[in-house]
């Protein structure tokens, strides 16, 4: 059986930045066999769990693109441009860490929802909500 890991990350106190963790909340019952992980940001400690799965889906919010839309990109291991890696890492760098340290990088995709409001508020904007809906429609088709 394919081991699927969904990592939703973002800050629930910064408006539409919460799209990733909220997507995981909504998909939890629908994708019962997958492993779910919500966090504020990606950190090096996640590399071991990433290395242990067959498919990793990174679910994030973005300020790029048309607000309310979703986007999917294939990821491959990649060294970070600025190799600090102290507190947070990009998904491709996390794959690189998984590969270098644990000998394995899974097939991986970055699923983003374009938000409109990233101010210090709780809850999604109307466009953020649309992006969330779209993400939750797309993700099951990727597994």
């Amino acid at each position, binding site marked *: 059986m394919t081991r699927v890991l969904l990592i939703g990350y973002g*800050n629930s106190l910064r408006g539409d930045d919460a799209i990733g963790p909220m997507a995981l909340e909504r998909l939890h019952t629908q994708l019962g066999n997958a492993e779910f992980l919500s966090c*504020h*940001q990606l950190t*090096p*400690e996640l*590399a*071991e769990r990433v290395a242990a799965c067959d498919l990793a889906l990174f679910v994030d919010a973005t300020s790029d693109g048309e607000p309310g839309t979703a986007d999917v990109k294939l990821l491959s291991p990649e*060294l*970070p441009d*600025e*190799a*600090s*890696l*102290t*507190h*947070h890492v990009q998904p491709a760098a996390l794959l690189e*860490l998984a590969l*270098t*340290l*644990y000998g394995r990088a899974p097939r991986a995709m970055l699923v983003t929802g374009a938000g409109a409001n990233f101010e210090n508020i709780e809850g999604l904007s109307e466009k953020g909500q649309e992006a969330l809906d779209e993400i939750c429609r797309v993700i099951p088709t990727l597994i």
Partner: protein
Amino acid sequence: MPTITIDPVTRIEGHARITVQLDEQGEVQDARFHVTQVRGFEKLCQGRPFTEMPALMARICGICPTSHLLASSKACDDIMAVRIPETAEKLRRIMNLAQIIQSHALSFFYLSSPDFLLGMDADPEERNIMGVVRKYPQMARDGIKLRQFGQRVLETLGGKRVHPGWIVPGGVSHPFLAEQRDQILGEIPEAIRITRNALHWFKGQIEFFRAEVRSFANFPSLFLAMANDAQEFSAYNGWLRFIDANLNIVADHITGADYMNYIGESANDDSYLKSTYFKPYGLANGMYRVGPLARLNMCKSAGTLQADEELAEFRELERHSVLSSFYYHYARLIEILFSIERMDTLLHDPEILGKNVRAHAAPNRFEGVGILEAPRGTLIHHYHIDQNGLIETANLVIATGHNNLAINHGVLQVARQFVKGNTLEQGMLNRVEAVVRAFDPCLSCSTHAIGTMPLDIQLLSADGAVLDRLRR
């Protein structure tokens, strides 16, 4: 006057820059560490109910939220005038130990190990954690595993790794479960193995860093840390004590009620970070250090078997107190070992599973002070409330503030040792940064890394012409 600016300082928790001023002959005249971010938490909490303070104060930082949570809760305990249940105190101690483990692991393995493993003079493109990952993957795996252990303990007890809400005024919100205890106990042997390996390795490296040992904030100073009757390592309960470089007690039995008689705070024109000083000696002579080095100099014993063996060896470094701040790294590893051992002892105490974990009370005082040893040093939260229980004033005295004078002194010492003349080399500038890293300053980084910003250093002549420039 020619000035070199290192902006930002990399691989530290927060935003800062260093300026090095040269004289006409190209010799270092002065050097300063400037914190360029403002925190503002003392102001924004005014008017909030005191019971909100632990959760609010934890938001100061994404690395050491548990320390602020604990100090804040202790200040609230003081306002309520309650003695929290013994089970709750033991659980809080475990949280504090887990915080020390994860924070020290971050400092040693992620932030500073590139300097030790790849060399102070290595190309900065390589001298970072990714360079360690490529060349020393086992060390990187160990660092990740050890930090993971500390974080997992925080998550197991507190519900989440960052900003756990479990610690509350009066104790903790709910009891600890046997299966949670057993899960943590199962991971302890591996955590000890990793720490002992790192200690063994680091001790073997010291001889290659003699110049850094000599010049990294290596000078006599006072030390401040928590003390207790047993003269053992103390991170949660006790009073404050100042000692001098010869281990003489300078001031003792300082409590929350009178810390302001001993600790002065001075605002700086060129930095948002205040400098604290030993008040009886004044700002000019009152420099002191806190954190792992101070704590190990302070205690007679760690109080655990393996850490005591390491402490005995550590003490052989110097006749009296250990003065070089390069040894903060060494002290951090010993503190990790102690924290794991002490956690193991606490987890084997049957009382840890007790159900009485919270004392309830309304405010009984208008003032409260909470003190504990955070990973980087002594942390003080001091609140005043009004008759409705709303915060009137809050004063936070944070480890990096205690160390600010020593950090500045250390930057100048290293700059004079390694920065020469009109040509800049990465190695010399990295050492200026590395002495700051030895203190592991935390500048309220919250959630972002500083390493994503460029480093631009300019060496200017007296008339403003660019003599040399380095960029990262």
